[in-house]
């Protein structure tokens, strides 16, 4: 009983405390860069698409709101033919970003996605792809991967030896 009264007293005095909330949208709170908002697809430092269409984001997604299809260019570089996020279903959990092996898919501090039409919450690749590297600068998956793509032949990646000459006789 006493503690209830003490609680009432303490809560009453909160009437004179500073307000925690802000009158949004006139006044906005600064969001940290790792805030989990709208999903984007980023590019590597060379300006190429980072996404290699490995499907891991789709597999990690607990609400199954990511669908994509892999395809390859003439030089063996894999990329998504389409990449679709249904933000009507997205719960912004960030699992896709965590699953992404190439830093391609990232969540941004933009959280103002409300719309009157559910259909316009379906984002395709052209809506998702941005022109920069997002939060992670300098990383390029194909520089550390073993496959040859346009602009990087076998053995030209980071930490790679030149291709073995099978016909060579040197020990």
């Amino acid at each position, binding site marked *: 009983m006493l503690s209830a009264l003490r609680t009432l007293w303490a809560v009453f005095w909160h009437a004179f*405390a500073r*307000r925690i909330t802000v009158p949004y949208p006139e006044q906005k709170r600064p969001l940290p860069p790792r805030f989990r908002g709208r999903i984007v697809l980023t590019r590597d430092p060379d300006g190429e698409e980072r996404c290699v269409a490995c499907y891991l984001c789709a597999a990690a997604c607990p609400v199954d709101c990511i669908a994509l299809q892999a395809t390859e260019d003439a030089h063996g570089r894999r990329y998504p033919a389409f990449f679709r996020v249904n933000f009507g279903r997205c719960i912004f959990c960030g699992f896709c970003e965590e699953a992404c092996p190439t830093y391609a898919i990232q969540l941004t501090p933009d959280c103002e996605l409300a719309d009157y039409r559910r259909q316009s919450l379906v984002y395709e690749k052209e809506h998702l792809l941005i022109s920069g590297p997002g939060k992670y600068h300098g990383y390029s998956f194909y520089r550390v991967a073993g496959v040859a793509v346009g602009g990087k032949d076998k053995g030209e990646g980071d930490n790679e030896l030149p291709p073995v000459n099978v016909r060579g006789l040197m020990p």
Partner: protein
Amino acid sequence: MTRLGAMLAKVNAAALLPELLIVLGVLIGALTLAGGLTFVERRLLALWQDRRGPNRVGPFGLLQVVADTIKLFTKEDWVPPFADKPVFVVAPAIIIVSTLMSFAVIPLAPGIVVADLNVGLLFFLGMSSLAVYSITLGGWSANSKYALLGALRAAGQMVSYEVFMGLSLMGVVAMAGSFNLGAIVQAQRHVWFCIPQCVGLVVFLIAGLAETRRIPFDLPEAEGELVAGFHTEYSGMKFGMFFLGEYVGVALISALTVVLFFGGWSGPILPPIAWFLGKTAVLIGLFILVRAALPRLRYDQLMRLGWKVLLPLSLANVAVTGAVILALGR
């Protein structure tokens, strides 16, 4: 209309007019107050929780009430196909009617009372007992497991707390010597009953919270476990009636507390009606503060508090009050 006009012509129109004004004033006043409370409560809760509350619609968000009313009226009035339709429709009306009827016996100021019954207090107790039907029938007729559980809880809770709500007031009645609420106010000329009847006051306030199903006694609703308890299946204005009924109930209990324990309209300088309304407002604030601060009880805690603490306490209060009155020998 003509028959009504003829009836009005027969009675003394001049004598009836003030009566009619009082009836309408109390009716409209109570409903407006309840409507306004929905807004005031949200702002006050925000105030005590370091938030801002609804401030978007109109100046200071005052038109929020209007917006909510429009919303409630225009929402689909859905009766679930599995519900018992007549009962489902009638249930929300019962709570509104029974609480508004109780207002009839409350003296707002000298002479301003709708029905100056000599058993006013008993009338109030009777009416508040009727309210439990609304909850129980509403929950039962919805034919939904959450609503049924909410209704069962409400029945148990309200029947239990009804008992010592009545008992807690017996001290007041004994001291005033009347069930007439006007007489009770009159009896507090020298000292408000909140001082001699402090135990009764505490018990009555707690029972009042439980009767209106407010936090910390909102087990019949318990949105954390029962979705929305007895009114889970209600929508539109039927839900609105339950909603309004709750706030009318808050206002009623507050007003009654003022009448019974805080001297009603009595007070210096200001006109009596202002004193009455001011005191009531402070008590309503207290109700809201309780909601802002206290967590919900568990059902077994609720029952133990009622039967093992409050009931003996109120019995003791009656006994002691009676003994003191006897000892003093009038």
